[in-house]
């Protein structure tokens, strides 16, 4: 993971589980293509070499490039990604997301994994959290599915487009 923990505060943050910069295994899609891509592209944040590969083996299109070594970090072939979010449901690290930028002028849709109670319902307003759990905006639940019928729900939330690089979780408010 190339962790140089004594250096900057940023690296310290990274060492405690907060992504700070793009790095192998945790990159954003190419902006131009992403903006036009109906259905969105996958974003995976899994920068450490660990013996794990369900993102690659569950992807129906090969968009998560098949691993040579099970410890590989995921690499994405964006031409193949349909935004189906199967990887979102399958990844045991809850490290896969799909973001669709074509939803509106200022709004995007993020599909994220959710395993807490209560489950959000369609149409509900939720709080959107960044990578350290701060509430950074409100969002509206657009869809709730359970693709693999295994209690990991995939929640689609409409969020401000300018926050797609920050929002990675939601809090359901009753």
């Amino acid at each position: 993971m190339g962790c140089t923990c004594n250096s900057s505060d940023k690296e310290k943050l990274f060492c405690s589980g907060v992504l700070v910069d793009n790095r192998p295994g945790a990159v954003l899609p190419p902006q131009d293509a992403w903006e036009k891509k109906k259905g969105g592209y996958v974003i995976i944040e899994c920068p450490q070499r660990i013996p794990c590969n369900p993102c690659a083996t569950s992807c129906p299109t090969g968009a998560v490039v098949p691993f040579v070594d099970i410890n590989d970090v995921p690499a994405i072939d964006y031409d193949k990604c349909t935004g189906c979010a199967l990887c979102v449901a399958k990844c045991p690290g809850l490290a896969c997301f799909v973001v669709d930028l074509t939803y509106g002028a200022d709004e995007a849709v993020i599909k994220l994994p959710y395993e807490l109670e209560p489950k959000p319902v369609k149409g509900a307003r939720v709080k959107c959290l960044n990578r350290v759990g701060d509430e950074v905006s409100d969002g509206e639940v657009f869809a709730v599915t359970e693709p693999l019928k295994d209690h990991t729900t995939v929640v689609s939330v409409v969020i401000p487009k300018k926050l797609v690089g920050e929002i990675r979780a939601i809090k359901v408010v009753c």
Partner: protein
Amino acid sequence: MKKMIDTDLLVIGGGAAGLCAAAEAAGAGARVTVIESDLHAGGQLVKQTHKFFGSKDEYAGTRGFKIADILLDEINSLGDKVEIRTNTTVTGYYPEEGFFTAMKGEEEYYRIKAKKTVVATGAQERLIPFPNNDLPGVYGAGAVQTLMNVYGVVPGKKVLMVGAGNIGLIVSYQLRQAGVEIAAVVEAMPKVGGYWVHAAKIRRLGIPILLRHTIVEAFGDKVIEGAVIQELDDKFSLIGEPRTIECDVICMAVGLTPTTELFWQADARMLYCPQLCGHVPYRDETMRTSHPDIWVAGDASGIEEASAAMVEGRIAGHSAAKALGLPVREESFKEYWTRLDHLRAGEVGEKIRGGICQVLVDGWEA
């Protein structure tokens, strides 16, 4: 003690490793008896509600307790070859007579004579000492998991987690899923010991992970009311101001150590190996210890993962069946080793590899 049970293969411990050893050997035709202390087989797997890592061969992406069901189904499909005796603990081994003693519940005792034995007794939790760690409210992570995931009881309202290895991170997440607040996770090292993704998953729910921090003491009148934590420098000396954290539970997730009493009793050759987290038996490639009739598999051979424990169980079961004179698929042995090598290939596996090379022998003198 009158009763004596006879079996081809005795498997001690019905966790991931033991169940795989039993399935593999029974698949080759062995008569197997599995002894498990707990009320049900499955070991650590039963407590794991999260999805597992690893590769598809080891059921990655499947929740732990489901994996236990898959293994038990495999065993059931083999007919009556495997007998699983739960609520029974193997209490000792008598090398001169060559039998094990077992205790069912608290009163029924019997002896077991086996041609071959796989010891897959898993691991025990470690604790670290600090003032007032005997107050009610201080738990091991395993106990918290058992309470929550097996009995559906939450241990308290607000938890201080000590240790950011995979267990500390995962149990924090599971506590949060059960609606319990996590005041903080403290970790003495400068980076989380568990997988980064597990840390990220609880960070984004707002749970702080304080690196280079430790618990200094607990306090409370009759039960835990809080803990004092403090920062550590790079020589692990306390620095900065102590800080008080309010909590009613302190959960210790500071590591596991292999359960090896039976190997000592069997006079197996042992080595203290820090990378494998304690004393472990030397073994050859088939997982046979220096005792010609005793194999080891899983966390008892060194703390690793369920994925590796299952493959080791297969290897031990395969080899024990072969030693019983049963026909086995020779290629399986190579395939299992390829899988193990893959699982251990990464940077996380580096420590394990370093440990294994110290305890792996080329073979035992006949």
